[in-house]
Each structure stands twice: as structure tokens, then as C-alpha cells.
């Protein structure tokens, strides 16, 4: 159930750790809780730690991508942390693109990333 997830607010960051085997209701609850917290605190970044997650289904992948888009709309950034190699391979094979989502190896580094200015959104000069 939704009790499995805790959304921790640290300064201007929201920190969420996913349980190992999130079911669909947990994943749906994740989105609700995160967006509610964004509204309440006006946080600058969401750090989503998925180091425990060892299987990635399409619902989870889509919800994470959508949640990130919603967080962007509410003025925040999303940083995915600690994805396991097997999960990354599945995600690539599924053709999952990260879009605006940033990634980091661990929460430490995610905090460094969050402290840096957000990357320019595909403003590369193309002629």
C-alpha cells in the first residue's frame, strides 16, 4: 500500500526511496504524494532513489517519466538515482527515453547535481 513510500523534504529537495518490488498502487501513490509535496513546499528538485528496484515494468517506467514531466511543470527537476545495470538494460531495450530526467549514481552525487544549475534544455546551436 501507499504506506510503503515516504516523501522526505530536505531543504528545497524532496527525497523518495522506492521499495524493492513496487506494485501498481504503490507506484500510483508515489505520483500523488510527490505532487502534493511539490505543491506544499515548492521544492526545487525531486530525488528518486530506485537502487532497490530490480525489475522495471512499463507502468513504473511510464509513471516515473510522467511524474518527472509534472514536476517540471511545477517548476522542479527530477533526478533518478542508483538504477541497477539490469534495469538500465531493460529500460534501453524498451526504448525508454529519459527526456528531461537527470540521473546520478547515488544520492550523494544527486545532491551535487541538484546544487548545479539545471542543464539548458536542448539549446544546442544547430544549423
Amino acid at each position, binding site marked *: 500500500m501507499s504506506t510503503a513510500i515516504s516523501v522526505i523534504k530536505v531543504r528545497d529537495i524532496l527525497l523518495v526511496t522506492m521499495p524493492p518490488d513496487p506494485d501498481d498502487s504503490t507506484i500510483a501513490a508515489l505520483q500523488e504524494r510527490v505532487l502534493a509535496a511539490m505543491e506544499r513546499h515548492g521544492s526545487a528538485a525531486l530525488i528518486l532513489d530506485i537502487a532497490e528496484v530490480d525489475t522495471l515494468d512499463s507502468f513504473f517506467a511510464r509513471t516515473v517519466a510522467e511524474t518527472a514531466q509534472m514536476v517540471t511543470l511545477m517548476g522542479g527537476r527530477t533526478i533518478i538515482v542508483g538504477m541497477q545495470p539490469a534495469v*538500465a538494460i531493460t529500460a*534501453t531495450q524498451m526504448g525508454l527515453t529519459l527526456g528531461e530526467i537527470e540521473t546520478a549514481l547515488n544520492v550523494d552525487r544527486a545532491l551535487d547535481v541538484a546544487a548545479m544549475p539545471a542543464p539548458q534544455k536542448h539549446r544546442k546551436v544547430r544549423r
Partner: protein
Amino acid sequence: MLRLLVDSVRDYAIIMLDTEGRVLSWNNAAEQLKGWKAGEIIGQSIAKFYPAEEVARGKVENELRVAAKEGRFEDEGWRVRKDGSRFWANVVLTALRHPDGSLRGYGKVTRDISQRKANEEKIKQQAQEIFEMAVVPVVQVWEGILLVPLIGVLDSMRTQQLMERLLHRVTETSSPVALLDITGVPTIDTQTAQHLIETISAVRLLGAEVILTGVRPAIAQSLVHLGVDLSSVASRASLAAGLRTALGLLNQTIAAAKDQAHA
């Protein structure tokens, strides 16, 4: 004298067979190797020494026929002991003939080479491990920087291994940057380029960056002519330039962390 030799010799089971492949004589080594005593086995067919599936395939008759025709038959394979356990044997079957040339029977010398077989397997396995290491070497060249020096043609099996090994090493060593050096790769086709892009995307999902280095003029030309879009991938002409870029990436991260600590 000869009888004494046959009975005293160890390690070699020496057996005489009649023309039908039934045991006529049995030495001490045969008893030790196979488990049957002379009284139990004399008169029985040698089919007892073979795994059932090989007997069904007609292996025994085949061996005897070849030995009779060519004078000699040598084989390595599984043989069965009295207790049902198996051993890897070297077997030499020799046809014995009367002075007039008619077949009298066979001499059969069997040796247990299980140990040698096990050693060979071990060496083969070690060679395989070394080979895999050489196929996709992943080395840490700096704290936080991995280097993958690729040499030779990249087929899909190799790129698959590349992806798996690189992702695991990135996670294990918590390295934010990986240098993928293709100086030693002779050509890149569309499929290989696609595999490389997939690998790079997967590494990014983990939270690390890949810099493609050693992009020689010929490679750069063929990538553009093939229409492969590598605009999202950082690439450098030389490994040295790539390493400089990687250090730059790390310094930025460290500098940013320090700024935050002071803030």
C-alpha cells in the same frame, strides 16, 4: 613372464575379448578401475562398460567392427564402473588374429584419464575467462573514470557483453565517467553504432556519462555518411582529449560540491 606383467601393471586395465566382444581375461588393474572381479565379468559382453545410451546407439558393435577392419581402434569417452559411476577413459582396442589371418579376438587396454580431462576442462575455462576479459576490458584509469579500450571488430555479441560489463563496473566503482575508446576498431556499421548508442543511453540511466574517444577521420566520415546521429554523445578524436574532458567533468562536480558546502 608376460602374464606377470599384465597382472602387476597398474593404471592400465588389460582385457582379452573373444570375437563377439565377451571378456576372456581380466587383470588386477581392470578390477580396480571398473570394480568387477574376474569371476563376475568373464564371459560377459563389454557393453556393460558403456553408458546405456551409447550401447543403444550401437557404439560397442561399431568399435569392434572398426578394430577388426583396421586392426586398431582408439577412443576417449565415458565408461561405467560396476557401481554405476562414470569415468573418462582412453581405450585402445586391438584385433588379434590367428596365423591364417582369421579373427581370434581382441585386446583391450583402458586407462582412466578423468584427472587429465578435469585439468583440460579447467584450462579451457581459464582460457575462456581470459578471452572474455580481452573481449571487453574495463579498467579504472582514475578515481571516477573508467576506460574501455576496444580493439577489433565489434559484433553484436561483443557489444552485448560490453553493455553488461560496463554497466556493472560503473555501478561497482561508482564512476561518473566512462571513456569508450574506439581507436582500435577498424570499421563501424549502422548496427554497431546503434549498439554503442544503446550502451551509452543505458550508462546515462545509471547516472554516468560516456565519452566516445579515438574517433579517427575514417570513422567520423563513415558515421556521417551512414547518417548515424551521434549528436547527443560527447566524442573526442583522441583518448588524451577524452581524458581531459572527463577530468573537466569531474572537477566541475567537485567544485560545485565545494561551493555548496561554503554556501
